[in-house]
Each structure stands twice: as C-alpha cells, then as structure tokens.
C-alpha cells in the first residue's frame, strides 16, 4: 500500500501542523510515513505545501504525484491539480471557485463547507485542521478513532472541553466527506505497534542529548533553527544549557569554551552562519578543543534560497579556516542516522579533540520520518579527559599538548589540580606556551595530523544497499540516500538488479575501505544535490575514484525517486554510454514565492 497526500494553503495557515498530525494518524497504525514540507521564505503571502507519503513497505522520498489533495485555498488547486492521479480526490474549501481550473475527469472532487461544519460542531476557527484531517481520512476510509486518539493526547492537558470540540470537528469533516462520496481506497492499520514520527532536526537533537550534549549555542538560521528550538524546549528536562547568542561567531566560540571546560557542547547553523564560524573552526583545530557543528545546508551561496534544499556546503565544511588541520565530516542519510551519527559526532570530537561537522540539509532536517525507534546503544567515549593528576612543581604547567603516538594528548578540565595549562590559538609547545621553534612547529602539526590514521580505523566503509552484484550502482551521500533507496525499490519491482553505495562519513576517507566497496561496481552513477559534484571531486582527490556518471540537481528540491529511476533507466537503455554529466530539472516548474506571477 502506498498513498500520498498533499495539503496546500497560503503561508501562515498551518499546513505543517496539519501535516504532522495527519502523519501521526498513520504512524499510529504501524505505517511508514514521510512528511515533506515546501514553503517560501515568507511568513505570509506565498504558498505552502506539505506532502505526506504513507506506505506499509517503507517510504523515503517525495514524489510528483498525489492521491489526495487537500486544497485550503485557490492557489493550492492551481499548484497541485496536475499532481492528482486518476482515481484520486481533491477536497477543497467550498469558497474556492474551481470552475476556472481544468480538472481531470477521473478525479473525485468534494467541496468542504468548512465554516458551516465548524459552527455546527461548536468548534472554533482554530480547529479547522481537525475538520480537514477528518475529511482526508474519510477519503481513504481510515478509522477516525485513531485520529481521535491523537487529539486526546495532543489536547488532553488543555481540558476535556477542548478535546471534545476537536473530536466533534474531526467527526464533522469525516462524516461530511463520507456522505458525499465513496472512499478512493480503504486503508486500515497494519499494526498495533506505533512508530514515531520525527523531524530530522529533532532526531539530531535527540541523538545529541543521548550522546551527552550539555551545552548548545546558536543563532537562528533556517533550516537549522529547529534544533535550537527543540533543545530549548528540553533544556530544563535534561539539564542542558542552551544559549541564543548575538551571532554565529559567538555561538561557535561559546561551544568551544564550553567544551574546553568539559561539557559536551555543540552549535548549529546553515551555510551563512557557518561562514561566520570559520575563524573559530581554526581555533578548535589549533587548540585541539573538541567541538561539534550541525551544518544544515540550504540553497547557497549567500542568502541563496533560504527554505529550499541543497548539498552544496561539504567542500566548505572541509576547508573552512586557514591552515591545515584534521576535522571529521559526517552526513547522516536518514532519520535513524541523524540520531546515531549526531551522538557519534560528539564522541569523535571528544576522542580525537577535533572539530566534527554533522552535515544535514533542509530536506532531511525539516522533513518528518517514521521510525520504529532509535538505536540507543551509544557508548559515550570522552577520550583522554583527565580529572585526577599528581601535583605540579611550582610555576610549571601540565603538558596538555604532549607529543603522543596517536596524536591525542591528555586533556585536564579546568578545576583539576595539577592540570594547569593554556589552550591557545597560537602554535605552541607541549605545555601550550607559544613557540616559533621550527622543530616544535613541525612536531605539533604532525601530532595533530597523526590522529587521522586512528580516526580512520573508527570510520566504517560506505554501506551497500541492494544486490551485491548489481548490474549498476548508484552512489550517494547524506540525504540523497532517501530518493536513491526508493529508486532501488522501483528497479526491484521491474526485476532490474541495482544497488546503492551510500556514504555517511565524508571525511577523512580511507582508500582501501572505499575501494573495497566501489571497486566491484560495474556501472556507477553518482547523485548529488549540487551543481559541481563536490563529493565526486573529493573522492577523486582523496581515494582516486571517479563515477562513470554524475547526476546533479540544484533547483532547490531534492532528487525525487522518479527522476533517478527515469534518468538511470535511460542510461541503461543506452548501454551506459553517453554524456558523463546529467543535470536534472524538476518536471513541474512552479514557484511558491510569487503566486501573483500566475495571476493568483
């Protein structure tokens, strides 16, 4: 069973909330759910849409078609009418005059008298989304009781009256649609075991909390802000200090200062904010202070397109700051990896006393995904922190930057007697005292660099999904795992043997491990959500490997599974010959920023 809803409305009408609640109705029934929001960088005026995909067999990518369109304003009908499949249904507010649109004959249409239904149910305008969700559920004959359960949990603490009214509103929407039309499908829960429906940023935050995060400093920036929001909401429950700083320069320095003092600390931002953090990246590098940065990419450069997605910042993550020093760049590819790699990034920072950067993007971070639960088997490894030390002779310092075999030196926390030292942005000797000695400079550079060898041992080879001996291989990193997996599914349906090689650890790279996986691939197609193939370039540079084909998309949308399926199918037909670079453009060329452009 696969089913797709779209909810469209003007900005500010709350489609995100409606989408989330609708999604929960299905995760409660044991289904897999993906919730994918698209919205312009406007608080009012533009168009918002939320896509909810439901499946009993995994679902991971937005698609171009939908079965149920919930159109809350005229714009929504205009934008999404062509997405509705034959046999699908459009439920629209009765105030919308749909006569001016050409709508498919095989599509059911139901005009919802929203205001009247609310009034009759004794509900308020704020409960409109309950009516809408009730209506949407009726269209597929899904038990309304599940939604009632969600409402009870959601509004329980606001009192019975509010719950009652919401349920009445939901029933009104449900009964109305049932009275008007036959359901397009009959969908029933597949399991009593509830899944969770979690946003990518929430999973990053939860993983960090589980990984021992105690301090988070950030400056708001879409699409990273919801990490900050979630952590703020939870700071008292989990004894975390969360700080909104004056800018990202401060945020990164706060995170470094807190790590120096001994608490696990991180910051998070998008590319523009990370630009302001570059100077402190170097500070962490030279002073060997652990720090973790959540870098949630959006369309760049500069302000770019703030609310749309891209994978354009990994070269930046890799090179931010002057000079040479080791850092670890990690890109989770799905909701469970958001959780576990977030915790792992904190471990790597602590263990190797380096910056670790968790690279996500708007698509992964702001979408909702179902999960059966996170892997909580996380071992917190604080590396070489020392809290008990012998007394130091008078007027001497501890050898915080002692030259060691693995490049990692003992790190006393302030407050520890016997551990006095100065952490510094200057090149320094083993005690942290500034030095310009040629031999010490070289020794300290080599010491810091030698960590790479050990870090690489902790880093797994890229993962293979699908047939080991597939006819062709899709290569992806980070969030592009999601559409790639769904494309694999399509190939499988057609009995075509394909696989996916997916990278979560982007840097440093181990040539042997990478080649042990990619060396066997027959035809390779790499997909990246950027315009230059940044990771393909890194693979060439660091492990001397190149894909046969490079498929790039940089329109602001993630790859859709269908696009990958179609483009790769074409390549297959051509015997994997042809132009090496393929640039993909979305089929529906629409923008939500200026509905006025379409006379709306």
């Amino acid at each position, binding site marked *: 069973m696969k089913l797709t809803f779209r909810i469209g409305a003007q900005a500010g009408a709350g489609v995100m909330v409606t989408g989330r609640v609708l999604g929960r109705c299905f*995760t*409660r029934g044991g289904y897999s759910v993906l919730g994918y929001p698209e919205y312009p960088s406007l608080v009012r005026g533009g168009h918002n849409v939320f896509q909810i995909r439901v499946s009993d067999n995994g679902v991971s990518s937005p698609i171009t078609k939908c079965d149920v369109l919930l159109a809350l304003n005229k714009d929504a009908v205009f934008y999404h009418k062509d997405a509705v499949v034959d046999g699908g249904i459009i439920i629209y507010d009765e105030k919308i005059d749909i006569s001016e649109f050409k709508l498919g004959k095989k599509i059911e249409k139901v005009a919802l008298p929203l205001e009247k239904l609310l009034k009759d149910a004794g509900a308020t305008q704020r409960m409109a989304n309950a009516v809408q969700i009730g209506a949407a559920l009726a269209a597929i004959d899904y038990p309304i009781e599940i939604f009632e359960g969600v409402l009870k949990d959601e509004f329980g603490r606001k009192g019975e009256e509010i719950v009652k009214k919401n349920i009445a509103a939901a029933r009104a929407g449900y009964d109305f649609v049932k009275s008007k039309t036959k359901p397009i499908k009959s969908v029933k829960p597949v399991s009593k075991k*509830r899944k*969770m*429906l*979690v946003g990518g940023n929430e999973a990053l935050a*939860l993983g960090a*909390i*589980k990984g*021992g995060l*105690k*301090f988070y*400093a950030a400056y708001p920036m879409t699409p990273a802000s919801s990490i900050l929001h979630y952590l703020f909401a*939870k*700071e*008292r*429950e*989990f*004894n975390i*200090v969360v*700080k909104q*700083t*004056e800018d990202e*320069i*401060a*945020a990164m*320095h*706060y*995170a*470094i*200062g*807190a790590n*120096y*003092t*001994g*608490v*696990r*600390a991180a910051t998070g931002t998008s590319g523009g904010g990370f630009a302001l953090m570059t*100077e*402190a990246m170097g*500070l962490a590098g030279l002073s060997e202070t652990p720090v973790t940065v959540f870098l949630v990419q959006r369309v760049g450069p500069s302000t770019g397109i703030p609310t749309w997605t891209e994978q354009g910042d990994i070269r930046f993550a890799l090179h931010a700051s002057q000079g040479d020093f080791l850092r670890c760049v990690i890109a989770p590819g799905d909701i469970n990896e958001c959780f576990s790699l977030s915790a792992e990034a904190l471990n790597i920072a602590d263990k190797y006393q380096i910056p670790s950067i968790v690279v996500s993007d708007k698509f992964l971070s702001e979408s909702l995904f179902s999960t059966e639960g996170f892997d909580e088997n996380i071992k*917190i490894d604080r590396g070489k922190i020392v809290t008990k030390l012998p007394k130091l002779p008078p*007027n*001497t*310092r501890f050898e915080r930057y002692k030259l060691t075999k693995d490049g990692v030196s003992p790190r006393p926390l*302030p*407050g520890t*007697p*016997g*551990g*006095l*030292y*100065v*952490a*510094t*942005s*200057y090149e320094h000797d083993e005690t*942290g*005292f*500034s030095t310009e000695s040629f031999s010490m400079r070289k020794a300290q550079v080599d010491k810091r660099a030698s960590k790479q060898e050990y870090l690489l041992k902790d880093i797994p080879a890229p993962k293979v999904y699908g047939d080991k001996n597939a006819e062709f291989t899709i290569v992806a990193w980070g969030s592009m795992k999601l559409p790639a997996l769904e494309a694999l599914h399509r190939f499988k349906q057609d009995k075509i043997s394909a696989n996916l090689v997916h990278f979560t650890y982007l840097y440093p790279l181990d040539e042997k491990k990478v080649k042990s996986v990619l060396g066997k691939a027959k035809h390779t197609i790499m997909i990246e959500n950027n315009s230059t193939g940044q990771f393909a370039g890194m693979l060439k540079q660091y492990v001397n490997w190149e894909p046969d084909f490079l498929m790039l998309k940089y329109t602001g949308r993630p790859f859709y599974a269908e696009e990958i399926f179609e483009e790769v199918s074409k390549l297959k037909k051509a015997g994997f010959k042809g132009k090496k670079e393929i640039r993909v453009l979305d089929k529906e060329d629409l923008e939500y920023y200026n509905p006025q452009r379409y006379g709306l």
Partner: protein
Amino acid sequence: MAVTIKDFDVKEKMQWCPGCGNFGLITALKGALADLGKDQSEVVVVTGIGCSGKTSHYINTYGFESLHGRTLPVASAVKLANTDLTVIAEGGDGDGYGIGIQHFIHIMRRNYDLTYLVHNNEIYGLTTGQASPTSLLGMKTKTTPWGVIETPFNPILSAINGGATYVARGFAGEPAHLKELIKGAIEHKGFSLVDIFQPCVTFNKLNTYEWFRERVYKLEDMGHKPTDKKAALEKAEEDTKTDYKKCPIGLFYKEEKPTYEDLLPQIKGKPLVKHGLKIDLSKAYEEFM
C-alpha cells in the same frame, strides 16, 4: 597552605616592552587572586589576541588564549559550563571595543558572573601602532597620519548604560589601587568591567605614564557613591567634558542584580560540568508517537 602571589608566576619571561603597562596590570591581577585566596586550578583566564592577550600565558592558572575579539564568548561559556570557576576575561581596546564589540554590548545585558579586564592603551599595540576605538581625537598613528577624526568610544559610559553591574577604571601605573578594583570586580556577583589605562610605551607617545599621572584622580577620594547612577554617568564623561584635564579612576558604578546563571534552574546548586550524561529519552519519545 595559602596561595601567594608567587604561585601565579610562570617560569617563562614576560616579553612585553620594558616599561609596558601590562607589567603593573598583571601584578595587580596576581595580587588580587592571591589576596582572595583563589586556588590556581579554580581560575580561568581567557584572553584575546594582542599584547594584552599574552596575559593568559604569563599567569599560572588555567588559560585560554582565543581569537582577536573573541575573549568574551569563550569566557561566557566557561562560566556557564562550570559556575564554580572564577573566570577572568582580558583583552585589548582593539579586541574588546573594536573587533569584538558586539560581544561586549551583549554580555552586559546578560550579567554573567565574570570579570572583564580591558588593557586600554588607546592603540593597537601588537600590530605596531594603528588607531584603536579609544585613540583620542587628533592623535597621529600609522592609520591616522593626519590625526584621529572619529570620536573615541567611551567604555565606561557604554557599560553603565549597557547594564554592566560593576564598572570601574584603573591605571596600570597605580597597581595597588588597581588590585583593589580587580578584587572588588572578582567578588562582585555579576558582570564586572575594569577598564585599565595601560600605557603603551612604544606606540602611544601621547598617553604616557606622565600624561595619565597628571590627569587621574580617585573617585573615592572625592566621595563618589558608586550606587548613584546619575553621578556615575556624569563621572563617566568627565574626561571628555574637561578636555582630559581630569580622568577619574576607581569604581564608577555598582548594582546588585541576579546573574544570568541564577536564572537557570538546571544549574542551580550544581555546575553543568558535574551533571551525569545518562539520559532516559522515553518520555521525550512519547511526544512523537
């Protein structure tokens, strides 16, 4: 065994120019810490970059020499992470009132319990003598060959207006007096600023020891009441208003206010760094089901 001022010394030679105001300043700081009986390992000196920035290398406590202008955000986080520590932030006038001024403005609103010492030599010392935000009108420097034409920044006035709860000015040429101001600042619960006239004998030929000696006087000698905000604001402008005939030093303003940390229940009575890392997320998960 009680700590002495010598415990705060380091073996390395302090490499400032002979006669630099930083010598008097660091002596006052070490003396203040010793007088207060501070355990070396409980003190963190966070500095920026500049001649002033070397202080963290020349004092035997925990230290962090961060980046130019970034003293305050690092120091703020050290305090939030471990409220048991005594945190001293130090930087130059370029560091704190130039490149890092956004942090200065905002830290005053927050009232963290930490002390900020500004080595105000009215010049960029380490970079060999460019104008700083506090260079006086008309002063010739490498970057103002025809004299400064920007109005100097008034840190004392900004601090009182900005919400700092302990605002003082010292003079490196009077280390005993400066020591008392620093002690008061460390003991003050909240954000304390001590702006320090610190002669740069190499690059600032205008604001010399003599220049200061002719002009400074102590507020306490004139019966100034630091709790009187109006009087404090007047005193803050006395130097400019008298065309630098009179430059008051001492405690301008002091106010009792809850600190930022006081308002965080999650670290009441237990520093963040001492919290356990074992977390049960099951309740948090429920919201997603």
